[in-house]
């Protein structure tokens, strides 16, 4: 039995259904990230776990105990809010100990707990300051301290890094990951940033319009996206989703990609997914991540199946660590990720290697994965 279980969770505001039957589970010590675009219901889902929103139907269990009707303070959870929600009238120490004070913990015990958390988060020198006297990163730390001091069964993070600048965000991300590793807490984390999701999670739930599109480990989500939405949402630069047709002779299948004013490219497929033969002669969406489309020298050596084709390079973007090249296939701009020192010029034709072991196919009608 999992530590956090969500069964058939539905949430309705009047006629509008915000959450349409969510099923998730998370093992003890796991790190579940709910990711999706704005308005997908991820924050609402987190609020229902916290008990700040009621649910219409379904069940939420924490450590085997149904918490549907429990007040937030009785669920043994702690929450870090997007705006940090530090009480402006209290000092840092007051903020951290407010929850304990409300629970009637004696003053000397509270002081001990504050000191312990301050040590972990290195905020000892800030304890007597007011939140208005803190920087963004310090506020973030205090907000985490307020959650940590409770030693709850479940931590809830609601887009905690979205108010920080880019560099601080990376630092805090690492810190959260370290905190998770050292304390072994169970965390549910909401973000719209797919990089945060990939780097932090042990499990990711990609959400759209109140439904879980795919639930799995970061590697599963990244390498085996269940549909076009997940493939497009996760990864930066996004996966190339190229309109293509399936061709080939007899039992051998090939992916045929249109090119502007030139012969279509035909990439022969070995080990094609079983469902693909049904699409022979029909359109599909051919998905290939930028790193699986590269210069032949930079191609992954142990990939079993690589096809090379000449492509017309339209734009070259040197990004420092990599060089991105944009070509046009199937009427869409397609991004290839090359080594930083790849010798490539815009306006020329260059052979690019397609790592077809990493390629995925989607049905254009349903947008679901062809297995």
């Amino acid at each position, binding site marked *: 039995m999992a530590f956090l279980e969500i069964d058939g969770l539905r949430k309705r505001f009047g006629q509008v259904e915000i959450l349409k039957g969510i099923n998730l589970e998370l093992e003890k010590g796991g790190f579940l990230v709910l990711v999706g675009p704005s308005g997908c219901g991820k924050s609402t889902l987190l609020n229902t776990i916290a008990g*700040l929103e009621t649910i219409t139907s379904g069940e939420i269990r924490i450590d085997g105990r149904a918490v549907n009707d429990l007040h937030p*303070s009785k669920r043994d*959870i702690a*929450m870090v*809010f997007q705006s940090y929600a530090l*009480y402006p*009238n209290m000092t840092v120490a007051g903020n951290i100990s*407010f*929850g304990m004070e*409300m629970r009637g913990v004696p003053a000397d015990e509270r002081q001990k707990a504050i000191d312990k958390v301050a040590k972990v988060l290195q905020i000892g020198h800030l304890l007597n300051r007011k939140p208005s006297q803190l920087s963004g990163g310090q506020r973030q730390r205090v907000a985490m301290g307020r959650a940590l001091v409770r030693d709850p069964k479940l931590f809830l993070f609601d887009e905690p890094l979205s108010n920080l600048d880019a560099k601080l965000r990376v630092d805090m991300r690492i810190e959260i990951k370290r905190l998770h590793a050292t304390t072994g807490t169970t965390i549910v984390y909401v973000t719209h940033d797919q990089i945060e999701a990939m780097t932090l999670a042990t499990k990711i739930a990609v959400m759209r319009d109140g439904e879980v599109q795919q639930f799995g480990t970061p590697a599963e989500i990244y390498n085996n996206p269940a549909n076009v939405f997940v493939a497009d949402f996760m990864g930066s630069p996004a996966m190339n989703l190229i309109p293509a047709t399936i061709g080939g002779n007899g039992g051998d299948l090939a992916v045929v990609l249109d090119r502007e004013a030139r012969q279509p490219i035909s990439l022969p497929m070995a080990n094609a997914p079983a469902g693909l033969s049904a699409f022979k002669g029909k359109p599909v969406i051919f998905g290939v991540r930028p790193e699986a489309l590269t210069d032949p020298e930079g191609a992954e050596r142990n990939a079993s199946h690589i096809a090379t084709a000449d492509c017309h390079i339209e734009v070259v973007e040197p990004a420092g660590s990599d060089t991105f090249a944009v070509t046009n296939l199937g009427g869409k701009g397609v991004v290839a990720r090359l080594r930083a020192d790849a010798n490539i010029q815009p306006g020329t034709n260059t052979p690019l290697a397609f790592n077809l072991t990493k390629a995925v196919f989607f049905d254009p009608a349903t947008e679901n994965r062809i297995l």
Partner: protein
Amino acid sequence: MSAVTTPAHPAPSRDSGGINVKLVNRIVIYGLLALFALFYLMPLFVMLVTSFKTMDEIQNGNMLSLPKAPTFEPWLKAWGQTCVGLTCAGIKGYFWNSIKMVVPAVIISTLLGALNGYVLTKWRFRGHTLVFGLMLFACFIPFQSVLLPMATILGSLGRFGVTLQNSVGTSFGLGNPTVNLVFVHVVYGIGFTTLFFRNYYEAFPTELVKAAQVDGASFFQIFRRIMLPNSMPIFVVTVIYQFTNIWNDFLFASAYAGTGDAMPMTVALNNVVNTSTGVVEYNVNMAAAMIAALPTLLVYVLAGRYFVRGLMAGAVKG
């Protein structure tokens, strides 16, 4: 190069023309301001100088001239000896009457307004906009229209007070004119105080309330520990507004406590000025009026700088 320097050194004729227009604008603006300041300060000035003059000087001298031999006599007389109706013990008793009425009325109406604002923004229930709309409506009800119904209600409360007095031994203040006035002002003030606090709390971050809920704070603990300590600006605005209105109220005061010992300051002042016996003592009247106006002035001086800040905080913060 010349193209760059030309805008930095415009033609002298245009420059002086600009200065002239500016100067005229300044003169007009400050002239108008001075005129209106004079307009508003003149009565205060006349009151102040008159209150320090002797009756002889008032009758023979210029109204605007400064007192030749300033005397505190009128102030002392107004405070301790002047006649209000038939009793000649000064206005001091009525001053305390007003304080006894205003302080509880302001505190109760402000706290109730804060509580209403808190519920209407952070604990929303079905129909909360309707309730708020009705509360707003209370701000637009004319004083006069509630006079008679309120008198009926106060009469019933008074009779209930007598019943309690006879059966339990205490009326719990029911029927007492001061308590009646506090009740009237609280009821009438709730509309305004609710409006102030609702608008302030509308912009108050709801995440703080959620965080406090997760922390295990109850409805009133959140109100007392989170909402109230962060409401200073709107508190000041509401207190100033309520204090000024209730202190200066004459209609309710004269209708429900127009006679007898519980008479508030405003009614007493009216009785001092409208006395029909003997010479009209302008200096004493002016001193009494100044004393009547002092508490509101004091409140403005002490809390005024928060007033603008409070209004701005509610308006600008998103």
